[in-house]
């Protein structure tokens, strides 16, 4: 792959982001041009901004990688990421806007009139923000590593520095325009190459991956295995090995491996002849790589096209429900999504915005699975190397090659960096804002800069040490925590008048806290094998009901603590603004 184009594209995206952010498309008018004030952000623009901020590395790279490795089961990810907005639309969007809250902590304080609940909510905002930032930075590292061969921490550092710089300097002034631009950039960056790729695929005779068979390598392929893996063979396989297989060290030797399970040490290079069947990774056994988290492919006997999500323990049905619950209910609690609704002028606009977001996000998610399927045909060896997230980036080079491949690859790299930058800057702004307001001792501009630094430094450092989990999986963990903490708080807060501060506190601590603990333990590789691992890796199934139940029970037990302003606040949340008399309608109408 030609590095120059890719580096050029990445640089262009970074520069465009910084420039639009800093200079801004500020509306500058004289009095002759009336009604600047009525130019609130239109639902369409705001929806593009929300989508731009929302579509992260997990969406741009991760889904294709997971589909490549684990098959259509992983389509639950895009479905869940999109459907989360449906829940948001029906239950939360308009009331959240009408509450006047800017951050989720604000909502907690407005609804429960309690600074303690606010502080607790802030801690969860920071926790979720960091969990979500972590895979963004790791994804950036991976992308830059593939493009330029730089060490994997360079990309993360680059994104962290750019984001910290622009946010701390107050450079994200016209953030709505930046994020809307990023959405269209990301969509273009995926859409244009996929058209070329599909044309090439059609010209190639439209080969189909027979999903249940082992993938077949189409050319002479050299695979460098990053982490130690166990591979399963159904038939003898001839490969040229440099490194260690089954504890025997080879140096460029051609070996025929017998059917069965083989142990390939990390760092080994395997060269396959054209037409060779790609061996499947086998999970479990006696010495699983302890650091690889739960992102391993499922057991070999399970076909690629099985409709259930992964989980190497084989509890796929449970894991699928965990994924569905986390993504459906987790979207509403993402700190960077919630703040964007404040831009809507009123509740109805917030609802309309969400509807447009559903369309935009839905359209975008049609594309990554295509890359996953094409990757299964043209680059199946990525499943062995442990960097399947790179599938989107290498496909143009693999299928088309030449200048066109380089250019399309550069476009994709630019799009991927747009994904890292937009999500990371949105998250950093939210986390830094909450840190300044509720965590750091005193307020002020200097503290905001310090908070920005803290907001990116923590996930950056953790990212260097934490285990590599597929990007989409890692984002799923943040969704699980959000679904178990903020979903109960928002849904009960908006729809149940008997919620009390002690109830909310207990629910946040028990539901969100347990999900957070389980997720942390999983990411640190502390979870024991078997059912405990599955339960901790997909906590949403038990932690969401736990959060709801605790909130309801404790609230019912403390009926005297219902905040006195509840009826007035609920009326404000649910009645349209025209009725509560908060929008001065007639004054505008006279002129028209």
């Amino acid at each position: 792959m030609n590095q120059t184009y890719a580096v050029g594209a990445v640089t262009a995206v970074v520069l465009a982001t910084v420039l639009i952010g800093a200079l801004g498309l500020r509306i500058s008018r004289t009095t002759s041009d009336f009604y600047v004030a009525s130019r609130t952000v239109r639902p369409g623009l705001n929806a593009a901004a929300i989508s731009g901020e929302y579509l992260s590395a997990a969406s741009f790279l991760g889904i294709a990688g997971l589909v490549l490795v684990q098959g259509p089961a992983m389509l639950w990810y895009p479905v869940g990421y999109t459907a989360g907005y449906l829940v948001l639309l029906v239950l939360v969007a308009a009331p959240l806007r009408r509450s006047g809250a800017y951050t989720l902590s604000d909502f907690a304080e407005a609804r429960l009139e309690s600074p303690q609940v606010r502080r607790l909510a802030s801690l969860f905002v920071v926790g979720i923000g960091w969990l979500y930032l972590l895979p963004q930075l790791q994804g950036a590292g991976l992308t830059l590593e593939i493009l330029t061969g730089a060490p994997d921490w360079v990309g993360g550092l680059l994104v962290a520095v750019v984001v910290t710089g622009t946010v701390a300097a107050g450079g994200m002034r016209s953030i709505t325009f930046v994020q809307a631009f990023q959405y269209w950039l990301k969509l273009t960056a995926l859409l244009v190459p996929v058209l070329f790729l599909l044309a090439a695929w059609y010209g190639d005779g439209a080969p189909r991956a027979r999903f249940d068979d082992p993938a077949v390598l189409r050319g002479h392929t050299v695979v460098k295995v990053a982490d130690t893996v166990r591979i399963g063979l159904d038939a003898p396989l001839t490969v040229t090995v440099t490194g260690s297989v089954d504890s025997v060290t080879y140096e460029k030797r051609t070996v025929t491996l017998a059917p069965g399970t083989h142990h390939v040490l990390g760092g080994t290079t395997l060269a396959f002849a054209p037409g060779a069947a790609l061996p499947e990774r086998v999970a479990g056994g006696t010495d699983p790589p302890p650091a690889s988290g739960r992102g391993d492919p499922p057991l070999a006997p399970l076909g690629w096209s099985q409709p259930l999500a992964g989980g190497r323990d084989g509890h796929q049905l449970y894991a699928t429900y965990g994924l569905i619950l986390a993504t459906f209910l987790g979207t509403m609690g993402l700190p960077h999504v919630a703040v964007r609704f404040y831009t809507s002028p009123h509740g109805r606009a917030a609802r309309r915005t969400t509807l447009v977001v559903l369309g935009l996000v839905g359209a975008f998610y049609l594309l990554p699975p295509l890359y996953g399927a094409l990757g299964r045909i043209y680059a199946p060896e990525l499943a062995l190397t442990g960097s399947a997230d790179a599938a989107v980036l290498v496909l143009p080079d693999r299928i088309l090659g030449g200048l066109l491949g380089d250019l399309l690859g550069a476009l994709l790299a630019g799009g991927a960096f747009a994904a890292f930058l937009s999500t990371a800057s949105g998250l950093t702004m939210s986390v830094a804002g909450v840190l300044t307001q509720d965590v750091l001792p005193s307020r002020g501009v200097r503290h905001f800069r310090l908070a920005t630094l803290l907001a990116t430094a923590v996930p950056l450092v953790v990212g260097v040490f934490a285990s590599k989990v597929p990007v989409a999986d890692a984002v799923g963990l943040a969704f699980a925590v959000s679904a178990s903490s903020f979903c109960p708080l928002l849904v009960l807060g908006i729809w149940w008048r008997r919620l009390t501060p002690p109830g909310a506190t207990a629910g946040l601590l028990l539901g969100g806290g347990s999900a957070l603990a389980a997720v942390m333990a999983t990411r640190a590789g502390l979870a024991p094998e078997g059912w405990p691992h599955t339960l901790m890796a997909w906590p949403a199934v038990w932690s969401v009901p736990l959060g709801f139940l605790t909130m309801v029970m404790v609230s019912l037990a403390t009926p005297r603590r219902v905040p006195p302003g509840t009826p007035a606040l609920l009326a404000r949340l649910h009645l349209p603004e025209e009725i509560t008399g908060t929008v001065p309608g007639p004054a505008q109408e006279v002129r028209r």
Partner: protein
Amino acid sequence: MSGIALAAAAAAGAVLLTAGFVLGRFTARRGGHAADPDLGTPVERATFHTLHTASLAAPPLRAGLTEETARRAAGTLRSLLGTEALCLIDRGAVLAWDGPGEDHHRAHVPAQAAETLETGRSRSVHTDCAEPACPLRWAVIAPLTGEDGVLGALVAYGSRESAVLVRAATEVARWASVQLELAELDRSRTRIVEAEIRALRAQISPHFIFNSLAAIASFVRTDPEQARELLLEFADFTRYSFRKHGEFAQLADELRSIEQYLALAGARFGDRLKVTLQIAPEVLPVTLPFLCLQPLVENAVKHGLEDRERGCRVTIAARDAGAEAVVTVEDDGIGMDPELLRAVLRGEHPAGSGIGLSNVDERLRQVYGAEYGLVIETGVGAGMKVTVRIPKYRPGVHRSSP
């Protein structure tokens, strides 16, 4: 890096943290022992303790006498008195009960306290409790007074009749009454601010209305269409400024009103007044105190056009700064002596300066806290730039009608 190493690092970190914490506590305690003689005699320490407990009860009472504040204050008041149980009532019902015996005593309290509520004098009564095990034998009822007489009463229960308890309860009730009076003071301060808003609205009218109508009149013959436009602007502007209720408004509405004001001022001053608006659309939904920008703009226009042949430029900018919106109003007019400005902001009005700036400053501080006052950069002949920071969310700040 493997997960085990990470876990090990985390564990090591946790151990280090615990060790540091224990060490810190240990040294702190030793330091405390060493400093013991400096903490004063037992009597002094008891005084400190009492003062500290009293300071804990003060904040809830400062919010007035309601069920919520009474519940939060009752516990501290009881530990202040050291009685078996303590009850707070207002003129209607029992607000809070702290301590045992609530089940069979609570219902009798209003009847027992009726006399105190009537006369405003403390008294000690026997509870006539039927339960032999109940420690609540005697009750001291002390009145809580405000500006307008008795607000409620504090009932302290003891196992026997004691002059000390009567004295202590009366004193505590008197102290609590002072806090309640302060709460009333807070409320009357809010009322004053509301009155000032009304004054501000009244202040806009005479000059401005006269000048606007004169400007419109000059267009009636030459440009009837323009005159009609201006009249509609004028109608909208006054409708907004004189709107009856609501302490808060959306920035979008405030800006619209400012545009109308500028259109009318522009009609009067013609080309001499040039205006630039730079508004980030993200901050338009921000809620802020009603009519807190218009005086700033009026001020800028007045300063910019004073004693000057050439025109002036007024720049109004609103930008997004994370959890805050920042609005600046800038003019390139004659500026102002900072000392004079300071006097104006202190509330002294030398040389006929309007109350606009100081009123806005005061209201912003009142709503958002002292750090959100106006920031003004100016000098004689150097123009003036006023910066307002508005938090996007603040409890109690919303647009609903009261």
